[in-house]
Structure formats: C-alpha cells, structure tokens
C-alpha cells in the first residue's frame, strides 16, 4: 500500500517540473559567484570546522571531519572549480550533502538563504562555459541582477574523470 501511495506523489513532482513549477535551492557564494544546490540534497550547514588533513588525497579533498559521530569528507569546492584557494584568514562555511550513503562537506565561502526558483528562469549551461564548470553544473538560473549556477552534487563528487576535465 505504501508504495502505491508514493507513486502519485512522485508524479505530481514530475509534473511540476514540466509545467513550470518551482524548485527550492540552498544558495551559496564561492568567489563572489552565486551557486545553488537542491534543498533536498542538503543535510547540514556548518560553520568553520576542525579538519583532519588526508595525506596523498587529491588536492580538492581538504580532509575529513567529525559530524556528530560520522566521518565526513570535506571537499574544497573552490579547488574543484579550478579557482584559487580561499585566503587563510577567511573562515568559510560548509554544506553537508549525502551521496550514496556517504557524507561530504562542501567547503564554500558563505551559505545564503533558500530560494524558491521558477523553472521558467532555468537555462542550460552556455556552451562556452569553462569545461570544468560545465561538468559539475546542470544549468543556470537567471535571478534578479545575478546568475545562479546549479551544482550537480554527484558530478561534483565524481573525481574519476577529473583528469580529463
């Protein structure tokens, strides 16, 4: 019964996407650019954390941290996006996401509010976008006065084809 109950709900959601409903995003800034992650993928928002470095890890992996007894891998999103590392004196914040049961903490400059964005404002990535960015983003929202890049969490955390990117 319960599985039946789920189905219609899903459908509604799907219809929303098609029919120009809206989606909720947690926004964040990295190097003055606005980014967004679907709110349902976000588990936690953290302030500055004590991070244990992991030797020999890819440079994007900043280390790991303890979040209420779970070990979370911290990813420096700036490095992942081919940006310069954050200046040491700025503390920064983190967004914790879950990917296939593993927690990752995405280190960003700051975390903003949750925005409900209309699908009409959504646009695919411009073809001329930096390949690394294009790889990890699903598209762009046109907001008032600025653009928000939607980050695709699985692709952001897929390091295997990074060399190619």
């Amino acid at each position: 019964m319960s599985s039946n109950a789920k189905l219609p709900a899903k459908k509604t959601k799907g219809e929303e996407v098609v029919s120009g409903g809206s989606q909720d995003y947690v926004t964040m800034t990295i190097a003055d650019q606005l980014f967004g992650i679907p709110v349902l993928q976000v588990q936690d928002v953290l302030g500055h954390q004590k991070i244990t470095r992991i030797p020999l890890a890819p440079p994007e992996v900043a280390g790991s941290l303890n979040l209420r007894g779970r070990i979370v891998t911290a990813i420096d999103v700036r490095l992942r996006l081919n940006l310069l590392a954050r200046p040491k004196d700025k503390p920064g914040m983190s967004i914790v996401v879950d990917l296939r049961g593993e927690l990752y903490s995405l280190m960003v400059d700051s975390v903003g509010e949750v925005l409900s964005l209309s699908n009409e404002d959504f646009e695919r990535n411009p073809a001329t976008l930096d390949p690394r960015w294009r790889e990890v983003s699903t598209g762009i929202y046109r907001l008032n006065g600025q653009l928000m890049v939607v980050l695709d969490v699985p692709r952001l955390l897929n390091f295997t084809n990074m060399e190619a990117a």
Partner: protein
Amino acid sequence: MDDLLSEFLTETNENLSVLDVELVRLEQNPNDPELLSNIFRLVHTIKGTCGFLGLPRLEKVAHASENVLGKFRDGELVITPAAVSLILQALDTIKGLLAVLEATEAEPPGDDNDLIIRLNACAEGKLGGAPAAAAPPPPPPPPAKKEEVEVPSVSLEELEAAWNAAPGPSTALTPVQPEPEPEPAKELAVPEPDPVPAAASKMPVPAAHAAQSAGSSGDDVREAGNKESAVAAQTIRVNVDLLENLMTMVSELVLTRNQLLQILRSQKESEFAAPLQRLNHVTSELQEGVMKTRMQPIGNAWAKLPRLVRDLAHELSKKIDLQMLGADTELDRQVLELIKDPLTHMVRNSADHGLETPAERLKAGKSETGRVTLNAYHEGGHIIIEIQDDGKGLAIDKIKQKAIQNGMASEGELAAMSDQQIIQFIMKPGFSTAAKVTSVSGRGVGMDVVKTNIEKIGGTIEIKSQQGKGSTFVIKIPLTLAIVSALIVECAGERFAIPQISVVELVRAASDSEHTIERLKGTPVLRLRNRLLPLVSLQELLRLEDVEGKEKRADDETFIVVTQVGTYTFGIMVDRVFDTEEIVVKPVAPILRHIEMFSGNTILGDGSVIMILDPNGIASASGEITMGENAGKDTTTVQATRQEDKMALLLFRAGDGAPKAVPLSLVARLEDVDVAAVEMSNGLPVVQYRGKLMPLVPIDPGFMLGKEGRQPVLVFADGDRSMGLIVDEIVDIVEEKLVVQLTAERPGLMGSAIIAGKATEVIDAGFFLTQAYKDWFGSSQGSEAFEEEKSQRVLLVDDSPFFRNLLTPLLSVAGYDVTAVENAQEALALCEAGEDFDVIVSDIEMPGMSGFDFAETVRRGSRWQAVPLVALSSHATPRDLDRGRQAGFTDYVAKFDRDALLFALQQTLSEQKGAQA
C-alpha cells in the same frame, strides 16, 4: 547435537508453525493463490531438507503432502476442509517425528504408509468431500511415535540404533530410560478411530486443531510440541540488519566511552571515576559479545566444498585432493555470506580449469592427484584467503586469443602487456577461457562477478600463475566492522593510528640514545639486535610538509614503530608516540579508497578524525614487494645521471698513502670480520660468510692479517659470488663528482681524484675481483654502456648493475662520456628520444632483447645504423664472434678484458673518424 541437525530442527519447527497458521487461512480463503504457493514452498523446503539430511520417513510424508498441495495449486483438486485436515495431520506426523529426532537424533523406525496412502488417495481425488474424509478416520497423526510417554516410545533396539547413529555422546541424555515398549512398526500403522476430521473442518485455530487432531494420542503430540520448543528456545533468529544496527550502536558507545575516559583523565578527582570505570567494563564486554554474534568460522562457508569437489572429480574424471586450512578463522557473518559464492566458484574453477586430467598430470611429471588448497588466515587486520591449485596455471596464450576475439584488446596492446596484466583479463566481464562449456564452469560469467563481489566488501583479489605449476588466487578482505586497538602516533604535526596487531615494538632513536639512525646512500636503517632494520619515513611516504616554524634537526629524536607484515619487518619513523586507543575502523570515503596507505579512518576520544595507516600498504609502497629490483633501479639512477652528477663514494684507508675510494654502489655490504675466523685456503685468506667461503683480498699485496681483533671488509657481490676487500678503516661516505685526474700506473688503481678536499686514490674494483676469482667476469652476466664526454659518447647496455657500475668509472677514467642503460629497450628508447652516441657497447646475454637482436634492430635502419657497436660478452669463441659480426657488431670483446675493451673502443672510434674524414 550436530549443528546441521539442530539448525534443521529449528528451521523446520518454525516452518511448521507458519504452516499451521497458513493452512487454516487457506481453508478460509481457498482461492488465494499466493497463500497456497507459500504453503507449497514451505512443505517443499521441508521435503528437500529431509532428503538432504537422509531422513526418509519424514521425506515420504512431506512428499505425499506436497503432492496433494501441488494438485491444489494446479487447480486439479478443490480445497476441502477434509483435505486440509489430512495435510494438517501429515504435519502433525512430521512434528512427532521431529520430536523423536530431537531426542534421539535419529528417525524412529517404522513407516506411515497409511497416512501416505490416504494422502495419495486424496491427491488422486478419491477423497471426496468433507464427509468422505471424516468417514475413513485418519490414524492418529503421529502413529509412528505415538503414546503418552514423555520420552517418545522408543524400543531398546531403536535406542541402540539411535545411539549408534549419534555422532557424539552428548546425545544419549534424553532417552536414557525409555520404556521398553515392544512396538512393531505394523502395529503403529493401525489406524485408530479419531474424531479429528470433523472437528478440523470447523476449526480455524491451528493450535486447537493440532490438539484435536492428535485425538486419543493427543498427549504425545503435546509432548512433541513442548519438546520442539527445547531447541527453538536455545536459538533465536535475528535479522542481520538488527545485529548490524546493534554493532553500529556499540561502536558509537565505544567511542563515547573513549571520550568520557579522555575527559576523566584530565580531571584529577572526579566522582564520576568509579561509575565510568564500571561503564568502561560493561562497554568492553558488550562490545565483545556483539562482535561474537557476528563472527563465524570460515569453515561454514566451506562446508559444501568437499562434496562439490568430489562430484566434480567424478564428473571430470580427475583425481582431486581438497585441502582446507584455517577453517576456524572467524570472520564477520555478513562478509562470510558474501564471499561464499565467489569462493565456491573459484574452487570450482581451480578444479575444472586449473587441474589437468590424471594422464596429463603424469605426462607433466606430477602426481596423478591434483591438489586444491584453501587457506585462510588473519594478517594485519585483514583476512587472507588463498585458493591454490597445482594444475597447469593460467594459459596466457589462450587469454590473449580470447581477449582479441572479444575485442578487449588489440594484438599490439597485448604485446606491450606483462603477463600479469594479461591475467587480469579473466576478471573482465564476459570472459571465459574454458574451451568447452562444461556443466560446472565456462559459461563466461565468473571471475568478473567474483571480483565485483569481493570489491563490494572492500576486498581485493590477486592472481598469481605459473605456467605448468599452478595458480593462486589471493583474496584479501578487510575487517571493516572490527573495533581494533591502535597505536596513535604523530608525524609532521598530523596524528595517525597504526593497528596494534602489526606493531612489534617501539624504539626511540636519538643522538644520545643507544639507537641511532644510520643512512646507507640516503636510505635510513637502524641497527636492532644485530640486524639491519629498513626504515620508512612516514613524513616522506605521505609527503607531509614540515610543520611551519619548526626546523627538523638531524639529531631530533625519532620514534621507530617496528612493524611486521607477513615475514617482512620494517620500521616506520614517526615524531611522537601517544598511547593506544580502541578504535572503530570506518571505511574511508570512496574517493579516497585508492590511497593504499590507509585502511580506514576513525574518530578518537577527543572527537577528532584520524586516518588509520595500513601496514600492508606502507610495506608495498616502501618497496617490500619490489625489494628484489631495488638494487637495479638505484644503480640505474646513478648511471642515468651521467658524469656531471654526483656519485656516492666510500672512503677508506688501506695501506699507506692517500685515502682510497670506491663507488659505493659497487659495494654490496660493509662487514667487520673477526680475524680469528679467517682461515687459509689454497694460500689465500678466506672467511665463512653466509654459508659460503668468501675470499679476502688485501689492497696492499704485502699486507699481513693481524692475529686477533676485527678487520673491516668491503664485500663485493655479483650473483652468488662475493669477495671481501680488506681495508684498514672505513672513513666516510661522500657524494662527490668523480673526476679521475691522474691515471695510475699501479695495478688496482684507476687513478686519483679530489674527494672531500683530499687527493684520493680511486681503486679499480675489477682488478681485485679478478684476484679473488680469475673468472669473475666470465661467470657473471653484465652489460655496460659508456659514453665519452670529452669527444666521444658511449652508450653502455648491460643488464647487470654491477658491471654498469664497474665500467662506468673505468670508461670515464679513459675519457669517455658514459650513459648506461640496463636493457636494449631502454637503449632504443634513447635512440628514439634523439640521443646520439659515438659508440655503443652492448652485452650479449640480456633478458628480453638479446644483444644480437639489439644490434640487428639498430642496423635495420634505425637512426643509429651507422654507429659502431661493440659487443661485450663472456663467450668469446670464434663462433660467437661470427654471429656478432652477422648481427651487425663492429667489434667483439671478451667481457673481462678491460684493456681489450679500451683498445677496441679506441680503434673503433678512430676508424670511424678516419672513415668520416
């Protein structure tokens, strides 16, 4: 009681209880196909298990019931209460039989023909409606065992039989005093009128039903019911997920406990101390208990293998001996379940593909009986399972063919692969080399699935294969769930955990302590109880940067964690050692899994995350596996750096005059020989060294050994030979650019050079080697490439590091610029890279491409086709010379003849110049 039997009893009793309920529900909803098929399946399972365990009487009853249910399912019979009752009766009979089985571990003799006949009749539709069923009243369901005795009615003979059949003494307990009740089987079968069916038709409640159906002999059914619970009460089935959860919670509890203890330590007096200690103990015990619930001996997963191998042997007409070692190695139940199938598959593979037929084996000079060995053991926090066979090994050629056929690789790609890489193909999906698909293997699903399954639980699989000798599969599974004790260390400001299990001891090394770290050509070593312990710097290994503001001084104290991996012992250098802590190994994030240095990570008592070092990974990263090749690699580096680069030189004193030097890379070891141990053989001093006689050669021919004391000796070794050069004192090891300035006239000296600011005589090790063994050069394989710097560049191709090292200085002295490479491939790579040489000196006997092939390749239109080639070989017969000329060598020089080599080079080069001019 036999594990298998008790498990069967538990399971069947459970199934029977379910059946009771289900059957009654069926009666009420005769049209529910799902219900019916569930019942059918349960009965079928019971039947199957009985057959498997060799319980014919139970099996027959179950079989007859299954028939009836089958008809129900197929719609051939209408479900009537009477039929259902009949089945319930059958179930009761089964229950009764089970009770006896539980008490005596054997089926009671006798049969249930009557019941079976009626079941069969029912199956054939002869059992009309309910009234019909009522009319021929079924016999008391458990006619076999009947009667009110608590202990089932067992005759003495039966008891005897049971006793004999019983595997152990433990069994005799219950039926010690059965009433000797002469009860011939026939009598048992006599139907006793029973009101059951009528009652049954009305009765929805199974329990009541059972009681009823028991009828006049109901008591013993009750008894049976009571007894059934005896086994059931001892074990309960728990969902693995629940255990998993419990384990996670306990892990968290352990961590929290650690945190509390950490806090407690910082407080001198606390009223929490006592309860915390108590909590500590309880937690430890709880942890142990929960761990135990999940551990099972690996033998459980192997239980079916002997049978499987036996059947295989039969089917394939092979003789196979299956050996199983370490069956009591415990591992996590879940892990066990997951590796069961891969293991079975691999054993099957080994027996089917690996082992040859007896005839083939005899032809290959092996014993007729092939052997498959399973071996399981713990090693450094992992469980290693080896599956080894002494068969024909993996057929590299066939794998290649198959890979090409399946389009997995081109011929060219395969040619560039090592055998090890080619073997990996068998792990690719859709790969099977069995020429024909047998019923046991060769369906092309196999090793890839095995690999996936093993990797799913974080394990690795490794294949070793030797043509004609057999193959070995090594599965390594981490104990991901384990709580282990670990040593916390610090290096460059970072903390790491090392599993205590692989730590042998801790040594403190500092300038003021008894242990100091010494360096051999930059490699740190430690003298530990008369052994040299190789050291690994954790800082270098993990590429950790120095802590800012803290300059590491050479005399800083260092701690050495002496670690053992398999048979390899080495030391890990760390800055500080803290205490040990219980840690819960958590797997690292998938994106970090490729880093071999870590086996996991964990949270310490203070709440910080810490990486757990994997001693196995460190050992292999530090060269344990490649140790054999290391010598070669190092020397290659020395040579590749050419003359401008510095060379490590060993400075020593011997005889009078200037200090002497020899390239360190030539020296195998430095030894201190007890003079008293020196013996004379054939007029030469020798000493017993590593089970062999090693000749000792003095630098100064007039040197006389003292009578006692110790004598420093430089040991030179090549292959299995070694010789000792007697020196007075070892002075130092320096890195210097070796520029030999004066060519010495004296034999044994290459010339003089300024080393460490002093005029130093560079000795010619080759000279002393021939003093010890006239045929030193002839016996060894070596190749050399020289380049001459002044005007001529020499490329030296030789696979022996020793000769490369020997000839490089020698030719340098003679004024050539030498580049040495260790094989023809590297030489050709230089050719392609655009390097130019005036002359190439090449060894003939080299692994891979021989000198002849090399010469032919060079002559066959490479960029170097005009470059003179000098062959260097220990075989200098006229035939060799001819062959060499044919291959394209300009000249051919015997290896041990240095003068001839220098002369030949000179000749060749001047001829070349003449030709050009």
